[in-house]
Each structure stands twice: as C-alpha cells, then as structure tokens.
C-alpha cells in the first residue's frame, strides 16, 4: 500500500492505495464518483476521461499512485453549485448525447481541448476527440455542441 494525496473536485483526500489500482477505480470505488465510467480495457474509448491538473487524461491509463499530489476534476465537479457547465449545457441543447455513457468523458475531453485551443475549427474538434468513442450520435451533434461554446 502507498499513501497518496489527491485533490478531487476541490476536496482533498488522503488514500492508501495498492500500486496497481487504476485512477478510474480509485474515483469510482473509493471516492464514489461514479460519473467517471469504464468503457474499454485498451485505452481506446475515452469514457473514463477526467482532468488531471487541467489536462484531459484517460483515468484507466493512470495509476492512482501516479496521480499523487494532483488536482483532478471529474464530471461531478465541472458545473458550479449544481448548474451545468457551458459545455454540459451545450451538449444538452444540441442533443449531443443519447445513452450518455460516453458523455462524461466526451465533455471533459472537450473542456481539455478548449483550454488548449479556445477556438478550434470543426475539423480540429473532430481530431481532438479521436480518442473518445461514441456509438450513439454519429458525432455530429457533439461537434456542433463544442463549436457553439468555442465561438
């Protein structure tokens, strides 16, 4: 076991983790933040995307112990006081989600993208989301939702 300090959605946590524990399971099973989900086991789908020190990462490819000292934002911590973050709101308005399983990761990947590139083109958005798979929407409304916020 290793002692790890994490700040998740602005709350500090001191945890004793097994070295092999993936960050996604630390969030889901130790901290109860089930908005972050697992969609694959090959780091392909992006459903588990969170922000680690402001950058979007796939939490299934980060060990809990590697995140020691980091500040993490999950989907639960994105909006303020229960309100939707502008990207969440835009996803809603553009019907950019159907089953919603990829949505947490998709929204956080979009937050990460706009932090790096505040006004991407539609094409740049498509490329930035290459690591996030959605099986329901055919992506178009997701692209539109992000573009609307980027403008």
């Amino acid at each position: 076991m290793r002692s790890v300090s994490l700040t998740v959605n602005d709350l500090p946590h001191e945890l004793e983790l097994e070295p092999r524990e993936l960050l996604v399971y630390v969030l889901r099973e130790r901290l109860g933040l089930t908005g972050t989900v697992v969609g694959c086991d090959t780091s392909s789908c992006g459903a588990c995307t969170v922000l680690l020190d402001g950058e979007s990462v796939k939490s299934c490819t980060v060990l809990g112990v590697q995140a020691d000292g980091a500040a993490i934002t999950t989907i639960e911590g994105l909006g303020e006081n229960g309100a939707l973050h502008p990207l969440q709101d835009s996803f809603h308005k553009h019907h950019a989600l159907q089953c919603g399983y990829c949505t947490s990761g998709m929204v956080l990947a979009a937050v990460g993208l706009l932090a790096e590139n505040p006004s991407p083109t539609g094409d740049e958005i498509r490329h930035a989301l290459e690591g996030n798979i959605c099986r329901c929407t055919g992506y178009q409304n997701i692209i539109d939702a992000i573009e609307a916020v980027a403008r």
Partner: protein
Amino acid sequence: MTAPAEVEVEVEVGRIIGTRVERKEDKKLLQGQAQWVDNMHQPGTVFLGVVRSPYAHARIKSVNVDPALAHADVVAAWSGADIADEWEGSLPCAWIPTEDTNAPEHKPVAIDKARYVGDAVAVIAATTRAAAEDAVELVEVEYEELPVVVDPEAALAEGAPLVHEEFGTNRCYTWNLEAGEVDRLFAEAAVTVTERYRQNRLIPNAIEPRAVFVTPIPASGEFTLWSTTQVPHIARVTLSGVTGIPETKLRVIAPDVGGGFGSKLNVYAEEALALVVARRLERAVKWTETRSEGYVSTIHGRDQIQEISLAATAEGKITAVRTKLTVGMGAYLQLVTPGIPLLGAWLYAGCYDVEGYSFECTGVFTNTVPTDAYRGAGRPEATYAIERVVDALARKLEKDPVEVRRLNFIREFPATIAAGLTIDSGDYDACLDLALEKSGYDDVRGQQQTRRAAGDSKRLGIGLSTYVEMCGLAPSAILGAIRYSAGGWEAATIRCLPAGTAQVLSGATPHGQGHATSWSQIVADLLGYDFDEVEVLHGDTAVVPLGMDTYGSRSLAVGGVALYYAAERIIEKAKKIAAHLMQVDEAAIDHVRGVFHGPEASLTLKEVAFAAWTAHSLPEGLEPGLEATFVYDPPNFSWPSGAHVAIVEVDTETGAVELLRYIAVDDVGTVINPTIVEGQIHGGLAQGVAQALYEEAIYDDDGNLLTSNMVTYLVPSATEFPRWELHRTETPSPTNPLGVKGVGETGAIASPAAVMNAVVDALAEDGITDINMPATPERVWRALEEVRS
C-alpha cells in the same frame, strides 16, 4: 395477407408533438448521476470471474479449481459440472424457425466441450473484482483440442468438424419462402444477374460494457437482478426458466443502460450465473465484463453469405428475385439467433414491384461467438443485397441506377408484396426526387465524368440506396406463424395523480432513445399536462409489470401507440366524471386537450383526477382513480422508407476511400421529436457506414478472434465521418392513430448499400464489380491490383 384496416391519423403536429423539445433525460447523464449497473453495490457482494476457453473447439478433460480456492479472497469456484444441477433449462432461444431445427442444449457454463474462444468453462466468486480476475488465471483446465470450423460455407462441407456431434451436421435449419412462378420468370427473362455478397461479422460495441448485479433475499427466495439489458421483461420470464426461480420471485431492473444496438437484446450466461451463485452463496453477486471479454462473450452481428439473382426484362423491369443465404449462427443459439436473417426474409425485393420471389436461408453452426440482433437485424442485409444487385442490373443494361429504380418502384399503397406482407404507405419517388435534388446528383455525375476524362487517380463514386424497412415488431399472430415464441404487443399505463402530475409506465425500455421525452410529449399533448408534469417510468418489472421491451424500431410504433390508446381511455373515463360533476349528459361534454367543456362550465383533467381520487362523488358503478392501461398489438409492421446518396472519393493509388458527403432522405411517418429522430438517424448512419468501410470481426482458421479488442477492431471516431445531410418526407402510417413508423434502425439499414454502391461506382470503369465490406484501403488496393494484372 389482406391489408389491415386503415386508421385515421388523429394527432396534430406542431403543438408539442412534432416539436424540438429538449430531452429530460440529459441532465443526470451530463452531471454524472446516471444509475449504471456497475455503480450498484451492497456490503458482502462477491464478484464473479469467468474462466473462458482459449480454444475454439476442445474437449474439457478436467477442471481443477483448487488453486483458485486457495486464494485468500476467493469464496467459491466451480466447474461447469460442479454447477450443473443449478440449471432448470438451457439458455433460451425464443425463435426456432422450423420443426426440424437443430437446437443444441446451451448451459451457461460448458461441461464436456468448449465450442468457441470465450465459452465459459468455470466460474469464480471472490470478495473483490481484482481477486476474481486473479483467480481466473489460477484455474487449471486440461483441454483436448479439436478441429475447428469458422466459415459458414466450410462448415456445411462434407467432413467438416462438427460443432455439435449429436446432430451429425452443422446445419441448424433451412427456411424457405416461395411466391410466384420464379423458375418460369427466370427462364423467360431477357436479362438475369447474379451476385454474391459477404455480410461482414460485426461487434456491436455499446459503449457501456455488460454488467449484472443480483441481490437475493434467501428467506423469501426473492431475487433482484440489475442488468444492462434492453429486455428486462423477456429476461425475467426466460431466466426463470433457466434457473427455476419463479417469475413471481424474480424482479429484473434495467436502470440507465448505456446503449444496446441489439447486443443487450439477449439473455446471457452471466445473468443466469449471477442468479444461481447468489442462490448458492446467499450473497449479492456482481459481474462486469471487460471490453475484450465482451468481444468473446457478447453476441456478434451479421456474418452472412448472400447469393441474389434478378430476372428482368430488356428494359430493366425486375420480374423475380431469388435469394439464398448461408448464415453463421456461431456455436450456440442465443435469444433470437436463427430468426435474425429471417427478419429480412420479406425484404429482398426492397421497394420494387416483382412478381416472383424465392428466399432460402440456411443457418450454420461454427466455432465462433453466437450471432444475434445487431441494429437492423436482417434488414440491413436484405437492403444491401437488393440495392447492390439493382446497381449490378443497371450496369449490365448500361443504364443509370436511378432509371432502373424508377422503373421498378412500388407506387400503389397499401401494397401487398410478392413475399406476402402488406406495405402500409410510402412515396418512394418523393424520397428519391428529394435525394437527387439535395445531392446535386446530375452535377456529381458530371464531375465524375470530368475526373475520368482527366485521368484523375482519385475517382468519384456516387451510390444510391432506396430502401424500405419492416419495423415496429410486430403483429403477434405473424410472429406466431413464423414460430417466434413471444408476442409483439406493447403496454402503456397512464396514471393521473391527484396533485396534478401524471406517471407513464412504459413497457418499452429505452437505453438512449429518449423515450421519457417523446412519451411525455405525447401525453402532454393529448391530455393537456405540461411537459415537465409527466414522468415516465420504465425498465423495472416490479414497477412496469407488462412489457415486451425495446428492439426492432418498435418502441414508438407499438409502445407509443399503446400510450395513445391509454390516453383515449383516460379521456373516456374522465369525461364521465366531468359530466357527473357538472350534472350534464356525457354527450354534452367536449374534450379539448385536458379540458372538459360543458354547456356552462368546464373542468380540467387535473380537477377530474383529484375528484376521481377523493371519490366523494362519482357516477354510479365507476371505480375511483384515474388510471388506464392499454396493451396494443399492431395489425401490421411499419414500413419506413427513404433514399440515401453516398458520394465517395477512391484513391486508386492507395485504395483509400473517403466518404465526402452523405445525403439521407427518410420517411419515418409522423415525427414526435425531430431532434431525436435526427439523432437516431445520425447514429444509425455511423454504424452502417462503419460496416461498409471500417468494421469486421476476423477469426483465423483456428477460431481465434484476431480483432479481439478495441485497438484491433476499428470502431470509428469523429474523424471518420462527414457531416450528415438529413432531409425528410412524411407519409403517415395509416395503421395507427399517431401515423408513426419508427426510426431506430433506418440509418444502419440504408447506408451500407449506399456507400458500397458508391465505392463500386467509382471503380466501375476500372473493371471492379464488387468489393467485400469493409472496403478498407488494403482490400480496395488489392481488388484494383487484380484487375490491373
């Protein structure tokens, strides 16, 4: 079959029905508050680990679970034999298409023989997920490898290894449909064409992996099963049969479910296993597949070899269609495995008027994961074959594919087709006209010629798919006639609560389709509630006892219509109460969207609901409360149709295909929510285009799944698709009062044919007449190399 009686379409579009209401499902999904099965937990839960065969075909000589039991966190471990006495019956197959179908026993854990890579051979129960995974590695299984067969045609050959020895053959069944003098029509035909197509095996890839959570109450023998299922009602009745737990003691809950596409329209070994392990250990049990595990344990789709022939006049009028399918069932029959290709049985003449029709389908066992429903289920395959072969006919006659289609369209409705069913309504010319206009068809043909003339190595191709689909599954009597074991009805309940809100109980069980929004629109519109005053409950057999669940584009076309009729019953009863309260004759009451107008006064439905609840003054003999259920059995399938155009660029030097534009014109009848309808089409198109260009589950000769994870099986990302260009025409269905037809599968049904017709069209002058799906750069390049040499 005679045409079902026509029903007046009764809804007015544009008030709430037909408008772009934003989804009420979204907020919790966007804020990470969805209730996924994998979120469920209870103290004392054990986690299942499933030991799976690494061989596609092997005798199980011994299973030693002792090393797993020695693991400190392992509670129990059993081989298939150890757990065999738990099974009351096989895993269910609800569709045995012929009397002489070979239907094998299918135990959730194999005992003597493993028949595909992934077949379960032992099960672990451990106190943590990680321990279960570790212990799976500790079980020692001794196998004797057996010869393997993976190709459906090879499996039918003399001397092929037998997946199930007891049948003496790998043939599961052969099913026929014959109408008209097909032999004569072919003999007399001025022109015939015969094509052979391969329907690539696909992996559905709902983004939420399958998961199961069971809580038992040992003293009462009750079990609650949370499952990532599209079919909680079907799961309850069938799992009762597998485990012997009475239906009355089994509650199945599908909470938020992250996509299905048919893969969760099934009843799986792990659901049954979790129940019996919970029964044995008297503890809560949980199992969640990893994605790679899902690739070898969750059903696959398609896997057909299609031979299709057309007989036609010299002008191109098609007189007869003959189809022969050889379909891989996989190693066992899952819930509707043998029936899937038969869902296309009536559609191999597409939207064309033909006289003779012959269809034969042979299902074949192979050492592979069982196939079953994947978005479209039988109908994309049929649409693909007829739309491709019509293009082949056009090429042979040196005519434009538009012209040949126009020559053959069905134009009078209702239309009883040669195959025997009746298409309710449609206007195929209108769809095609709009698709040609929006795509700039003639201009694109011009550009194509210009490029050819200039010797451009990047060819332009334009492909059509004018389709009709058979949706809204299904009239129960027809399902019975084709030997499906359940009905095709759907149930809806409306409960007008005393304080002014309404609950809807929906037997249809959504997993992304937005039923709560659409159903609320219907009820709000018909009964005068605000959209937000309507709550839709679904997916729990204890809350919604009646249901046939969600698949086959049926939810709106069957369940939505049930809701309409339930609303009618509410109005009927409320009218009586309103008349009584106003002390006037019922005939003097006029109902307009939730308000009952009498000669001198009026009452709202909410006021009537309150009066029905207090029951202080009700007409004599009328029961208190305002609640109505309607179980609707549709008189016919529904028949959405449309015309899709794909425009591709094919690089003849690299073989790369780029989908430049995709124009879809769809007629899905009345639209309740255009935004949701467009979303359904977007998603279906993405899956269909993926079948055409990207996805294929590949087995090697030893039965190893080579595309065994999301790295090697290409589920497309946002970069692989263009912007979808959607347009609609609307011919309401005359068989239901909403005029709806269904939209869930449209995109996936129409698009593979449009894309592949475009690819072949691009390369036709190079001498290419067919390329197997998916048209990967390598495959296109090799095809070109072959014709060049």
